[in-house]
């Protein structure tokens, strides 16, 4: 069977160079798809903590093929991990046939005006994902699609009823738990255009999701059917939008919540104002024990069914990505505010636009008290303890079409014990660190289609008294980057990070006291070249990459330090 699909893929690819997207075979349908392959070499580097990799070279490859004929779509994805890259779960290489090769995703879909049927693997989101969201994020090795059946009914325009049942993908196997759920979504504007005034939109929805997993634990009575439901409402009036969502889950003792028999709940409220030149948004989120998986024993990134993203700004500047925040599924209370303002052209600042973005977010712990071995009490309001705090500003100023300056300043407070899961509850081991970050980016474009972008970043980190620090990544940082592009095909980039003011702990053999002594600086140089031809992109890079956390969209995963050559190929046909 695998050979048949490989052949189909080859047929599709061989036709590809002649057409921009998809291959239309007359009277049959359209084939389209994409290929992505990432290969990396690893050299052991004890200075930066890069581990020894016996395989020396690791790779991930994905080939997606879609066939479409009118209302019918068929598709599959072929994956090959030889072995999975570091930072990607190694079970991709050890489950299923154990060869790292397989077709873990395939589906048949039929869509009509009033209904849609999908058999096989599918992705789905109910509301904002608080009880159910299945999606794929390849660069993080994340794919939690459900393999089963999904039905969607649209009896009237604006009303959508979705139902599904199936098992979730678990690497190259299927989960132990069976997931089923239903969702109702009402879009009043679509149902009746005249019911609401012109500039008013209203959406309401409700969902239920439940999991069945047998209880084979001899020591505890575990619930075999776990139910989670949520309701949501979203109202927009002219430039103002207000949205709220509430989710509830019955008792679900699992590996991630320490086996508690408490129920879980989450509340999310969001308001925003958007008019030309000024955008303001504010949000608040309270989560208490809402981690929901298709297998109660799964940990880390495996088997998640819902999506609880961090209520903080997603930063893209390299140095600050050393300390990203990830939602604590056991409980947190967060708030965020965001303002984007563009000072129009011709103002006192000069001829061109200036855009200012301000953002602040803070995440508190919940105020909980343990009542017995399996239950705890949680107050609605937050505890004084702060997990994360972020205040930042970014200013972008253009000067004509050929020059632009971006500058930004970020200040964060980061509770390393809780966020990185490195200490006992309420223990201060790594403490709360404060990071100050500043950067300037200069962008020049010449008239001949070449552009040069340079970034200068600095981050100063300060720690609490007497705490431990990460063995490799501690101290302050400076980074310089230069990227030169030649439209439309070439990108050259060089960058280097310097970690200075590092210290190592030293234990006095007599008194047992631990003090810190200066340690050597570490440099992380790196270079890459990328070539783009229409939908083909090939990038080759070489250098030392610091270990850290990679975040794409709403989720993050730890990636160990590495030293070596990397090759990334991406092609859409």
């Amino acid at each position: 069977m695998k050979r048949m699909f490989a052949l189909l893929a080859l047929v599709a690819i061989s036709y590809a160079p002649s057409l921009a997207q998809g291959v239309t075979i007359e009277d049959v349908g359209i084939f389209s798809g994409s290929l992505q392959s990432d290969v990396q070499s690893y050299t052991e580097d004890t200075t930066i903590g890069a581990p020894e990799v016996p395989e020396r070279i690791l790779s991930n490859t994905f080939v997606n093929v879609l066939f479409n004929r009118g209302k019918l779509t068929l598709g599959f994805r072929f994956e090959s991990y030889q072995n999975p890259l570091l930072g990607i779960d190694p079970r991709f290489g050890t489950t299923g046939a154990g060869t790292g090769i397989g077709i873990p995703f395939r589906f048949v879909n039929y869509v009509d005006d009033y209904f849609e049927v999908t058999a096989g693997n599918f992705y789905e989101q109910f509301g904002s994902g608080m009880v159910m969201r299945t999606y794929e994020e390849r660069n993080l090795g994340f794919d939690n699609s459900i393999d089963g059946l999904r039905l969607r009914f649209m009896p009237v325009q604006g009303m959508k009823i979705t139902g599904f049942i199936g098992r979730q993908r678990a690497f190259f196997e299927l989960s132990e738990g069976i997931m089923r759920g239903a969702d109702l979504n009402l879009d009043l504007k679509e149902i009746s255009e005249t019911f609401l005034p012109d500039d008013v939109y209203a959406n309401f929805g409700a969902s239920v999701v439940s999991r069945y997993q047998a209880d084979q634990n001899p020591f505890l009575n575990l619930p075999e059917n776990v139910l989670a439901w949520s309701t949501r409402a979203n109202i927009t009036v002219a430039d103002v939008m207000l949205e709220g969502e509430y989710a509830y889950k019955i008792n679900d003792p699992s590996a991630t919540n320490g086996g508690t028999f408490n129920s879980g709940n989450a509340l999310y409220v969001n308001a925003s104002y958007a008019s030309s030149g000024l955008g303001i948004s504010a949000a608040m989120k309270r989560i208490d024990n809402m981690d929901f998986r298709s297998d109660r024993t799964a940990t880390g990134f495996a088997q998640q069914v819902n999506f609880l993203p961090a209520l903080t700004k997603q930063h893209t500047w390299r140095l600050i990505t050393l300390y990203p925040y990830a939602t604590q599924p056991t409980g947190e209370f967060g708030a965020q505010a965001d303002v984007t303002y563009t000072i129009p052209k011709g103002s006192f600042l000069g001829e061109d636009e200036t855009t200012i973005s301000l953002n602040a977010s803070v995440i508190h712990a919940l105020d909980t008290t343990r009542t017995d071995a399996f239950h705890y009490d949680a107050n609605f309001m937050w505890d004084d303890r702060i997990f994360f705090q972020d205040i930042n500003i970014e200013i972008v100023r253009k000067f004509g079409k050929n020059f632009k300056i971006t500058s930004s300043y970020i200040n964060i407070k980061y509770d390393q014990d809780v966020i990185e899961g490195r200490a006992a509850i309420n223990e201060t081991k790594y403490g709360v660190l404060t990071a100050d970050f500043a950067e300037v980016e200069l962008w020049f474009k010449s008239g001949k289609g070449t552009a040069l972008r340079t970034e200068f970043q600095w981050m100063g980190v300060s720690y609490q008294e007497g705490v431990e620090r990460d063995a490799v990544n501690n101290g302050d940082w400076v980074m310089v980057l230069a990227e030169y592009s030649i439209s439309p095909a070439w990108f050259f980039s060089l960058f280097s990070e310097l970690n200075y003011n590092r210290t190592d702990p030293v234990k006095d053999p007599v008194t047992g006291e631990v003090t810190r002594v200066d340690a050597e600086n570490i440099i992380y140089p790196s270079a890459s070249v990328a070539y783009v031809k229409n939908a083909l992109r090939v990038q080759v890079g070489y250098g030392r990459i610091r270990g850290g956390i990679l975040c794409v969209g709403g989720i993050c995963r730890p990636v160990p330090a590495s030293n070596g050559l990397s090759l990334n190929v991406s092609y859409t046909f």
Partner: protein
Amino acid sequence: MKTFAFVLLSAVMVMAMSCDVIDNPIENPDVPIDTTTKVKQNVLLEDYTGHTCGNCPDAADVAHQLETLYGSDRVIIVAVHAGPFATPQPPTYPTDFRTTVGNELDNTFKISRAGNPNGLVNRVTRNGKFIQSKDNWAPAVTAELAKTPTMGLKLDHTWNATTKAIDVTVTADYIAGGTEDYYVVVWLTESGIISDQTDYRYDPSHIEDYDFEHVLRASLNGTWGEQLSTTPVAAGQKITKQMSYTFPSGSTWNPSKCDLVAFVHRYGTEKNVVQVIKKKLAE
């Protein structure tokens, strides 16, 4: 419209009924007492751990709970220290519990890359999972113990306290016929070692006098052992293997706290452990 409303309502009702709210979390396990002397299936529970792994002591406790419930002759625990959490970190975690055997096992099964604590239960794939997280150990061990054994094992040994030499004779008794991929391995483990361990259940989480049990110290005959027979073996046959081992010079292992663990596994094919047995090294 009415049909859809009906479908929707029934779906919601079905969902609402699939809802188990538990009032009493604790279940008292019923372990039937089997006094017959026939051969029983034992379980090898490999706990892959490390001294800076803060979540690992909790897993070690789960393993101990199972050992207490079913008996340490039936649930045989081996703690394999390998991966980044087992790396010595002077000055606070100076001990090196890693072994060549442990490193090779960890690299082959890629367990520490999936995280610690994690374990293998008779190296069996259950519900699509080979690597078992600690919450799976209780159901997996219970299921394995209930299986009908296909092999009996006997372990005889001599221990010379002066030269610290061990001579071992392992006898594999084929209750059911076996194939040529049966390999026998004999390991040496030590318990009662006091050293530093991170435990996130306590504040401060650095425990200086943690009691390490069942630590894998060495293999007497290589990581994967030796082949029992190059040809398939019929039921009723017995095959014996002998091997010797001497404590490395300068080692501080305490012989009265050591155990010999012998097991037969299917090497290169199904990987699963067929039978396992444990014996104290010295009194």
